[in-house]
């Protein structure tokens, strides 16, 4: 059927407005969910293509058969969180860790889940509340498919182990609380989070309660706690987007003004990383945690001959992690690249500034890694400085594979880092 033929058919055909309202709502739901899922697949597909290395790394790190092991380990964690035999504080800790993990899982997907700028246009259309909620729920299910598969395995494990409906129900409540936390973070409805934390506490208390009635009562109270939080958020009208409109503090305002005047490039870089809080916190937080972890490992080794290789390997891994900031900074500028090219900037203006910025970020992990050894007299100040400088050189060199390596960037980065680590360990050992 040609466009004209289709149009005549459409005009004379059965349009949703002439059917019942529920039928129209179903039609609307089908149309919107199809569009949103298509957009979700497209946006999340791009995300996977961009960061496929992390998935490969996850498959390599998690012991067991690739891919399957990730689901099995996640299921074991979920099952362990509601298994009996732990103190309330341990239950609370595990439940909170699962909440945080699921929020971190959903954060990189927020652009794909938002529906893009099309949803700003769709917001001006008379879409029923039920249709919107249905579509959002469907999208959330799609985004949590990995979690749902793991949850299914976990429920099967728990059921076969205990044969009691209480633990599977607790697991479902735990997932409900985690999804509430995801929704709160995605929609900036922070008022929901205290309800979720309280729900976690009540759930943990219920898991260790001795009386059956009290356990079920506390389970219901945990769900009610999160539900009340969500109802309060809806009633207070903190709709999507409005939560972000907050006055900037004077201190931040002054800092921004000073940077704008004296270091506009640094301001642009700071704003770039601040604009991607999840990625920034995850990357920089992991690098710092890695440095602290290496410190702890060296203490466990009682600073014997394994200390230097541990520190050097940690420095190499931190460099690999922080090198990702090169891509973040470059991608942020890609939209205005042609405009920037027309400005009278010296050659390598941005590469030099990006390198300096990332080297600056490496300062904290380096201090964490090297200061205990300097303070204990294991490493002379001169050698420590030399090691720090070569590490910074490695981080500067990592810009090339990250920026120009394409899909092999991680491979080239790992090869370069391995080479540096080998040379550094050999040099320090002598």
């Amino acid at each position, binding site marked *: 059927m040609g*466009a*004209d033929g*289709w*149009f005549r058919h*459409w*005009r004379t055909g059965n*349009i*949703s*407005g*002439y059917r019942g*309202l529920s039928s*129209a709502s179903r*039609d*609307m739901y089908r*149309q*919107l969910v199809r*569009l949103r899922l*298509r*957009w979700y697949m*497209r946006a999340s597909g791009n995300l996977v293509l961009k960061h496929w290395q992390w998935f490969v790394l996850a498959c390599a790190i998690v012991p067991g058969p690739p891919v399957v092991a990730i689901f099995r380990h996640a299921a074991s964690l979920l099952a362990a969180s509601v298994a009996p035999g732990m103190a309330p504080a341990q239950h609370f800790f595990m439940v909170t860790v699962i909440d945080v993990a699921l929020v971190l899982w959903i954060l990189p997907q927020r652009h794909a889940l938002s529906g*893009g*700028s*099309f949803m*700003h*246009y*769709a*917001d*001006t*259309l*008379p*879409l*029923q*509340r039920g249709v919107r909620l249905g579509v959002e729920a469907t999208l959330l299910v799609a985004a949590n498919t990995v979690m749902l598969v793991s949850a299914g395995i976990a429920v099967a494990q728990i059921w076969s182990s205990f044969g009691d409906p209480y633990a599977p129900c607790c697991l479902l409540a735990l997932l409900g609380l985690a999804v509430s936390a995801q929704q709160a973070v995605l929609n900036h409805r922070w008022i929901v989070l205290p309800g979720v934390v309280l729900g976690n506490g009540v759930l943990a208390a219920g898991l260790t309660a001795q009386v059956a009635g009290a356990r079920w009562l506390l389970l219901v109270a945990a769900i009610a706690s999160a539900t009340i939080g969500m109802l309060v958020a809806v009633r207070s009208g903190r*709709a*999507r*987007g*409005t939560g*972000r*409109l*907050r*006055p*900037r503090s004077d201190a931040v305002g002054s800092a921004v003004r000073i940077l704008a005047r004296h270091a506009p490039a640094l301001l642009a870089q700071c704003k770039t990383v601040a604009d991607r809080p999840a990625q920034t916190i995850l990357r920089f937080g992991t690098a710092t945690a890695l440095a602290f972890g290496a410190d702890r490992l060296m203490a466990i080794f009682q600073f014997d001959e394994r200390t230097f290789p541990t520190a050097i390997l940690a420095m190499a891994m931190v460099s690999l992690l922080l090198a990702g900031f090169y891509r973040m900074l470059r991608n942020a500028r890609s939209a205005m690249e042609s405009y920037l090219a027309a400005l009278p900037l010296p050659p390598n203006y941005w590469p030099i500034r990006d390198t300096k910025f990332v080297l600056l970020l490496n300062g904290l992990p380096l201090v964490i890694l090297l200061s205990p050894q300097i303070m204990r007299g294991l490493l002379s100040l001169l050698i420590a400085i030399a090691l720090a400088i070569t590490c910074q050189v490695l981080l500067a060199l990592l810009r090339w594979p990250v920026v120009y390596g394409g899909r092999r960037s991680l491979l080239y980065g790992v090869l370069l880092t391995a080479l540096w680590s080998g040379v550094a360990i050999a040099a320090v050992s002598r």
Partner: protein
Amino acid sequence: MSSHSALACEGLGASYEGYEIFRSLNCALATGVHALRGTNGIGKSTLLRLLAGAQAADAGRVWIDGIDLMQVPVQAKRRLSYVPDESPIYPFMTGEELLHFVSAAKCSRVDGAVDDLIGAFDLRRHLRTRFDAMSLGTRKKMMLCAAWIGAPRVLLLDEPGNGLDFASRHHLVRRLRELGRQSAILFTAHDDEFVSACGAEVIEMSSLIDPERSVPT
């Protein structure tokens, strides 16, 4: 003010990243064509987004044909159409998919008026073209056609003449004048020729923000 005007707002406030764009903005528009004019960045597009419900206001209320947009958004939006300056449509959507989507959302149908507009804009051959394969002007025309669905009582258009060829622009002017007899149309434009061709009453954005500083038009 709220119940007698086709489009009205009271105490409307908006800010972006902590910066106030305007506050306590009031307006009441009867049927007719109105052109919103003002310097770049004064908040014209923001005001249209707030009036259309595309952006949540920090404060204030909006009435579309006497219906509170915040209290009963679905009923209010049935009487409203909005065309943003830039096309926010998914790149994989086709023109016909957009028209179908909007007509389903409004529980309406593509009537003769929309069909005529599609013909006048020479859009029939683009109905099955994806948005990412359309030119800027074609996208704009498709969005304008979608705005005519459901015979809106209020039409909010952000720079409607941008990117349109001469013939389409001429046709749009004619259609705006026609629709203005029964609906309230508010559009932003910097083009005085377009504004006068539409026979639009000019509203200065600065006079809405600061009513004391009314600028003669």
